[in-house]
């Protein structure tokens, strides 16, 4: 009974996000255009083994798409004055945030799936473990959309300052991850730093699904993403709760 009402809040919030925020320019730019440009920059003029770099690219796509909805929603609602109205419905902050995470995840999964399926046609890749691949997409999406929701926690009514913050956080996470330099070639401090980025685990997880060249033991990546998700979610709830009044 209680759970069904909570769940209803989550799903209705997510539906609202899909209807309103998927169409907003920052989501289109960071969620669609940006990964596409990165893709071009990545492949054109580089004589690399496409199949070797594909997991990294897929991870980046999932990262950008999943984390693009979260940072937008709460600041936008605060600015538009809809935040208090939303919280006046039978929801609590947890349900709202989980709804935002769900909306972000669905966006990431949908776009990444299209990229994955499309790429299957012209990149010769070997999918060695479908289960791992799908689980990685799912967990990656949840982890990064949770990160996005966490980024939106500061008490501001300005979506643009949050978009700035989100770039400040997201880009370093890419650079220290195993996207540009494969984890297997990293050494010393760089290698340890890469373990800070949740993206590293996703890339490695994708490797265990595609091509089978993962560095970490199979499954560790998924576990790490699960832990990141929980951490981001808990932190997001805590900070959003604290800042709720300021945003009304």
């Amino acid at each position, binding site marked *: 009974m*209680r759970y069904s009402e909570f769940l209803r809040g989550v799903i209705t919030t997510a*539906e609202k996000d899909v209807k309103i925020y998927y169409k907003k320019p920052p989501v289109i730019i960071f969620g669609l255009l940006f990964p596409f440009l990165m893709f071009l920059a990545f492949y054109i003029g580089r004589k690399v083994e496409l199949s070797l770099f594909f997991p990294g690219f897929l991870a980046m796509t999932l990262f950008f798409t999943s984390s693009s909805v979260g940072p937008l929603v709460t600041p936008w609602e605060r600015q538009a004055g809809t935040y208090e*109205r939303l919280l006046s419905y039978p929801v609590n902050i947890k349900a709202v945030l989980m709804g935002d995470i769900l909306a972000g995840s669905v966006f990431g999964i949908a776009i990444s799936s299209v990229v994955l399926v499309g790429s299957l046609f012209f990149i010769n890749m070997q999918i060695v473990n479908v289960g791992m691949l799908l689980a990685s997409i799912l967990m990656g999406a949840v982890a990064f959309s949770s990160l996005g929701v966490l980024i939106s926690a500061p008490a501001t009514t300005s979506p643009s300052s949050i978009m700035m913050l989100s770039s400040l956080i997201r880009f370093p996470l890419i650079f220290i991850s195993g996207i540009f330099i494969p984890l297997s070639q990293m050494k010393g401090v760089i290698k340890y730093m890469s373990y800070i980025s949740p993206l590293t685990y996703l890339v490695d997880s994708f490797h265990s699904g595609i091509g089978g060249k993962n560095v970490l033991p199979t499954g560790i990546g998924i576990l790490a993403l699960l832990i990141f998700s929980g951490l981001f979610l808990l932190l997001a709830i805590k900070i959003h709760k604290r800042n709720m009044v300021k945003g009304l």
Partner: protein
Amino acid sequence: MTVAVEASDLSKTFGDVEAVKDVSFKVGKGEFFGFLGPNGAGKTTTIRMLTGLITPDSGKALIDGIDPQKDPIHAKMKMGIIPEFGNIYVDLTAKENLHLAGKFYGMSKKEREKRASELLQILKLKGRENDAVRNFSKGMKQRVNIGCAIIHEPPVLFLDEPTSGLDVQSKRLVVDIVTEMKEKGSTIFLTTHNIQEANELCERVGIIHEGDLVAIDSPERLRNTFDKTQSIEVSIEGEFDIDMLHNDHVNKIERSGDKLTIFTDHPDVTVKRLVKLTDEEDLKILSLRTQGPSLEEAFVRLTGDNE
């Protein structure tokens, strides 16, 4: 009296500002309760604590016996809330906003369809239901907002200054809708800083000032207090003795600059006296204005009486 809304010792401080201080009251089931106070009195803060939006520093609220702090989801199922600054989604149409609200309240698609079309009729928005709310006037937006709050026919309705900034027609419509909700048995909790509005609509009025609940009574009994707070603002050229202006109906005269504010429970008599007097003394009236009851002044009287 069956209690629908109960506040016990609610307090909230923001930094140095004690927004609400130990406020307690009960609102009966089906009652139309007005919460009256000037700007910054603590009305919105009180409503937000009652509806579980902010946590009180101390004290407790109960809505139909449910503590909105402990069980916000169930408490909010019983309420319709129109926040002072709560906007609906301008990217959605009027109908989509109503449906979204219905979904949050757990209504089936069929129920939503039925209620939404009913409400669009009542709110005089038929024909505009599929337009994005972005292009609506303020009054139309507020009507949709109210629709979103009453779509589930809540037993308790909270309205935070629902008519402020609306034109006469929209105001009328809002008042009619709320009155009808009350007739159907809902409890209404309405905040306002408009004495007239409180007098006309409410069965009982609570007056809050700087976080203190200074009086709770029926408008009839408060009217006595309010009446004494009517005033005449006058500016007179020439020398004269202020005491000449006093009569049985004048409670107080205040001077600020060249203006005098004469507080009176009988503006008619007082103005006539004033005109006669200035005529006799050959004084010139530069300006004259009668002012309705003042909440600030009523507060001064109420706390004065209490002390």
